[in-house]
């Protein structure tokens, strides 16, 4: 059964591009949108495309410092880049490029639009596929992220609708920016599942980062061992999410769908398959239906295997959000359109086949460690959430 849903998209968002050889490559957006279209997953009415708008300065300033936004505008307009390092910009990860303010305001506006469409009741779910810049902080950029479209949209939801927000982050990297911005806010609960920061950037996201002040207990982190596979990841997710939802009772879910935990991703060490992404979004929509009228605002995020993984993962995310069955065969026209450009062989099935990965030698240890991490998080964090144990 298809669900009223909106995919927020305009080709202009692919202008969020640092330099030709940068790993955060907007080509992945073109690949994803064209696969979604080729599979007939947009019907123009129930499951439709919507155009983004620009985020206003006021909306940006709800989460970013004026000094930072002014600095981005200055760099964006070609002004002196002295002192850019202070703002986390002009680095190899997050270089300065002309027009970076406007284009990031558009990406942020896309996620705002996605939030507006859901909160107004026009659709139940929305997908800002270019959004998900979860490393941007209050006063600096970081890890490919200039402005936090996620935090800006969450702040807008809080201001305009006074709704309680559950923020879920499935990117393989810890969602440190969003967590930091709402660290003391008990009306925004952030839950990030990611590869442990023991080695991986940004080096945070451990269980004991629980929030501060009023928000203590409203920042949750589940760091997974490197080489964690679908089974262990889903198992933990299925146990944790209903408990968090039961205690917290959100009004809307904002979910970041980075797909860089896939085994083919070059930047991380997790070993997920496409099954993880299809199942995860299904579970999220299911719990949203049961507690918050089905309201889900989704974004993209990380994902650096741009040819083999991202288009398929995000097509499955869109299928799950819009309640449409995604056919398994990748259409010939899509393969023909892109194979010439692709440096690797494009997969012919949307879903990864079951068992084509070499077994992980330490699987038992990895899974046992993940279970211990889950128990530690449940023990420390769940009792801190106000509604815990009330049974509502």
């Amino acid at each position, binding site marked *: 059964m298809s669900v009223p849903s909106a995919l927020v998209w305009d080709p202009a968002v692919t202008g969020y591009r640092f330099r030709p050889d940068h790993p955060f490559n907007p080509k992945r957006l073109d690949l994803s949108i064209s696969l979604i279209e080729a599979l007939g997953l947009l019907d123009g009415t129930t499951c439709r495309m919507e155009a983004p708008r620009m985020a206003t300065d006021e909306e940006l300033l709800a989460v970013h410092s004026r000094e930072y936004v002014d600095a981005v505008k200055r760099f964006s307009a070609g002004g002196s880049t002295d002192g850019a390092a202070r703002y986390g910009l002009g*680095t190899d990860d997050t270089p300065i490029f002309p027009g970076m303010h406007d284009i990031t305001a558009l990406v942020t506006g896309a996620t705002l639009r996605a939030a507006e469409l859901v909160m107004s009741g026009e659709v139940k779910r929305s997908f800002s596929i270019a959004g998900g810049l979860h490393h941007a902080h209050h006063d600096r950029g970081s890890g490919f992220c200039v402005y936090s479209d996620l935090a800006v949209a969450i702040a807008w939801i809080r201001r305009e609708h006074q709704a309680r927000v559950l923020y879920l982050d499935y990117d393989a990297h810890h969602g440190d920016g969003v967590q930091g911005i709402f660290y003391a806010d008990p009306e925004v609960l952030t839950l990030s599942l990611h590869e442990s920061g023991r080695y*991986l950037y*940004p080096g945070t996201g451990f269980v004991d980062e629980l929030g501060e002040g009023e928000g203590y207990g409203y920042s949750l982190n589940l760091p997974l061992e490197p080489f964690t596979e679908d089974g262990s990841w889903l198992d933990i997710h299925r146990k944790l999410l209903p408990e968090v939802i039961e205690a917290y009772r959100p009004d809307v879910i904002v979910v970041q769908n980075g797909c860089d935990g896939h085994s083919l991703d070059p930047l991380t060490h997790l070993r997920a398959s496409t099954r993880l992404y299809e199942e995860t979004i299904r579970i999220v929509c299911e719990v949203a239906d049961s507690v918050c009228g089905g309201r889900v605002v989704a974004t993209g995020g990380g994902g650096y295997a741009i040819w083999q993984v991202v288009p398929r993962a995000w097509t499955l995310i869109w299928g799950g959000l819009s309640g449409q069955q995604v056919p398994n065969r990748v259409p010939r026209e899509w393969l023909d359109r892109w194979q010439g450009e692709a440096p690797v062989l494009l997969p012919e099935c949307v879903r990864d086949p079951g068992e084509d990965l070499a077994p992980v030698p330490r699987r038992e240890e990895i899974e046992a460690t993940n279970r211990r991490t889950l128990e530690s998080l449940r023990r420390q964090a769940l009792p801190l959430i106000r509604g815990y144990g009330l049974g509502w």
Partner: protein
Amino acid sequence: MLVSKRMTRDPVAVSPGQSLAEALRLTREHRIRHLPVVEGGELVGIVSDRDIRLAMPSPLAAGDAESTALVSETPVSAIMAREVITIGPWDAVEDAARLLHRHRIGALPVVDAHGRLLGILSETDVLGAFVELLGPAGASSRLEVSMPDRAGELARAMHVVGDELKVNVCSLLVPPGKHGDRRVAILHVNTIDPREVIQALESAGFEVGWPSLETDLRRGGGA
């Protein structure tokens, strides 16, 4: 890292004449385990909550008036340790750690040149300092780099990362080598994508530790 930066200033203390009951109440109230004993501003002893409890009647025995009176009448001076291991405010936290470790004690009173009590440094304070030292300095990826233990190797590795690739090293830890002629540097680099750094270090002849299915970092030669 100096003791004075890490210690608790003006710690809760008792005088030698205060009773065990009162000392116990202080440890409970302030949730602390050690009480320096001070007379005229000068440190004369130390008691731990464990010392006090050992001197108390068993909670299993029926509490008779006599033993209750004993607890409220016995002064701290009767049980305190008089030979106190102390440290100075200008000493290094590393030295404090070594003292705590060697003497198997839980806290060090910090005294000035005249024996006056300035503060107390607990094992938790020391642990906190080391957690900070070992933790990442801002958003970064962590790598382990194995290199020959000889002059110039560390500089060469830093040259590859900093000069050639212009990637900032946010923190660097190089424990003394234990594996003969090699040692492992643990570095946090300020990038989400360390592939180039790893590749450049490897082409320069270094071994780089980073999660891998082939080599298990926790069992292999890694730090």
